[in-house]
């Protein structure tokens, strides 16, 4: 009977382990499957196409070029490798001001023909139209080559404008840099503070203070990040704005501060645990040789706890990089490459949270957001591996 229960429990534990592993794997597979679709998606928004006159020598335009053209920033074909002619932009709506409803026929059956007429009449034209009105007879008209969104556009693209027409821009560089900048500054703030407080708790504070402070700090780790975000929004951002004399307090720096505050409890708690595992004998040995308390801390305790401290820091970073809500609330959410920490930025998690709701399922935007998730996953994976390496590293230098 006892043996039976034993094996039963063992099997249950094994099973739950397997289920967890499979779930995690499934999530990762799902993430990458959804994300990878992005590179099979057309650059031009789904269901639309871009037409030019057949004599136009331009064969294809990158999403960036398309955007510049339709924004009116590029006005001459020469810049795109064509003839020296001014570009005429033709937006689909214009067809309704050229022709009356009657001329376009019932259910717009004649619309493709009329489009053909208009486009073939002007060698400088560029037209952006729904795929379904594509003229059947492409005389005097040329469809620009349809390219898939490329890896380079995604990974080193400098602009993230998922709603741009005709071609949305999915360059993650601003988001990636935003994430790294905010996290990096946060870590720069959190490490000295966190390790400092950990040292204070483990080595300096008396037992009563420690018993009070440690649970309080651990409690901080449990506060929902929205609360931190709100705090950042109503307290930190205005302070930064005032002190820095800025137009806007919601900056990368505000995000870093909020993240640092959020990462602190993790760092403090784990680093303190690491320091408290140091045998009393080590401390005594150092003190008995005439080392001061401070010498003992930085020559014996910190090196001895270094792998634990490193793990604490990495876990803190992990929280900072993946954090969504708080950062979403205080960084100002401008998806541009930041020049300084006092500018608005937008991080990857914040982007996913903010945009997933509006991105139509299965569309390029949706897939791009999943790809962002993959990037985030890889970043945190790297961090975990680093953490693993550091904490398994032998503390003794040979």
């Amino acid at each position, binding site marked *: 009977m006892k043996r039976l229960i034993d094996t039963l429990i063992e099997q249950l534990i094994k099973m739950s382990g397997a289920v967890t592993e499979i779930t995690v794997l499934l999530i990762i597979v799902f993430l990458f499957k959804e994300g990878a679709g992005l590179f099979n998606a057309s650059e031009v928004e789904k269901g639309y196409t871009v037409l030019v006159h057949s004599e136009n020598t331009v064969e294809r335009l990158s999403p960036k070029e398309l955007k510049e053209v339709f924004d009116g920033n590029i006005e001459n074909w020469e810049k795109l490798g064509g003839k020296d002619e001014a570009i005429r932009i033709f937006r689909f709506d214009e067809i309704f001001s050229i022709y009356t409803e009657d001329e376009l026929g019932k259910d717009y059956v004649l619309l493709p023909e009329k489009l053909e007429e208009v486009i073939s009449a002007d060698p400088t034209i560029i037209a952006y139209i729904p795929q379904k009105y594509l003229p059947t007879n492409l005389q005097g008209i040329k469809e620009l080559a349809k390219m898939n969104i490329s890896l380079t556009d995604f990974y080193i693209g400098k602009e993230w404008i998922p709603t741009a027409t005709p071609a949305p821009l999915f360059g993650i560089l601003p988001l990636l840099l935003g994430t790294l900048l905010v996290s990096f500054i946060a870590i720069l703030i959190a490490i000295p503070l966190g390790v400092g407080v950990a040292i204070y708790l483990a080595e300096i504070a008396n037992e009563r203070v420690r018993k009070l402070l440690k649970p309080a700090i651990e409690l901080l780790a449990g506060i929902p990040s929205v609360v931190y975000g709100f705090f950042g929004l109503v307290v930190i951002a205005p302070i930064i704005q005032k002190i820095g004399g800025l137009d806007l307090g919601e900056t990368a720096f505000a995000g870093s501060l909020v993240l640092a505050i959020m990462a602190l409890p993790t760092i403090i708690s784990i680093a303190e645990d690491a320091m408290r595992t140091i045998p009393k*004998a080590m401390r005594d040995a150092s003190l008995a*040789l*005439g*080392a001061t308390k401070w010498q003992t801390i930085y*020559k014996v305790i910190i090196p001895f706890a270094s792998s634990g401290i490193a793990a604490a820091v990495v876990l803190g970073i992990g929280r900072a990089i993946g954090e969504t809500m708080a950062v979403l609330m205080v960084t100002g959410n401008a998806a541009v490459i930041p020049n300084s920490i006092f500018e608005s930025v937008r991080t990857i998690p914040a982007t996913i949270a903010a945009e997933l709701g509006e991105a139509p399922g299965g569309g390029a935007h949706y897939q791009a957001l999943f790809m962002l998730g993959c990037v985030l996953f890889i970043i945190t994976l790297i961090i975990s591996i680093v953490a693993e390496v550091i904490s398994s590293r032998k503390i*003794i230098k040979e």
Partner: protein
Amino acid sequence: MIETKNVNFYYGSFHAIKNVNMKMKSNSAIALIGPSGCGKSTFLRLFNRMNDEIPGAKLEGECWINGKDIYTKHTQVDMLRKNVGMVFQKPNPFPKSIFENVAYGLKVNGIKDRAFITKKVEESLTAAALWDEVKYKLNKSAFELSGGQQQRLCIARALAVSPSILLMDEPASALDPISTAKIEELIHVLKQQYTIVIVTHNMQQAARVSDKTAFFMYGELVEYSDTKKMFLAPEKEETQNYITGRFG
């Protein structure tokens, strides 16, 4: 010369050392014996003020070393500890190289001269009878040494800062008989240059290494005399009982 005057020591309300008056001559070995929990370690730690680290502990009376009260407001505890070295019950080398272990005390005491440190490390390891065993692997981790070697390393580490007194708290209790014999031999040599106060559980060891022996019980100093006399003809009955093994 070490002297205690009416020393009482308390852990909170627990009276661990009771009115002890004792004088220890320089360049000799003094053994502290007595049953477990009688306060030997507590008494030993008074002389390098390691008891200071214990919260709620309190000292009454005076401790003098070489003509100075070591518990005044002006006493520099780090300088005191440089002069009064300590070897602990369990070998406790740092997780550093053999060399760095011995050099540690010099470095924390502000010595930067590489050549001097190197010289001092060799001298100390030689004095601790370890040099020949480790001279080719000074950069190896101290943890690669055997327990007995580690304890001698800890002795070398204590000697490196040139103390005049060495406190040893059951330094051989965690070691095998051969390592123990080596440590005892070492104490014999060291006591010509250093004052050695050694706590031991082992009667034979006390008899072998010390010039004088102090017997403690329940925090009181029961008897203190020449080792020979103590073991051959103790004055007190408790001492007699303890050394013949009828107690503790």
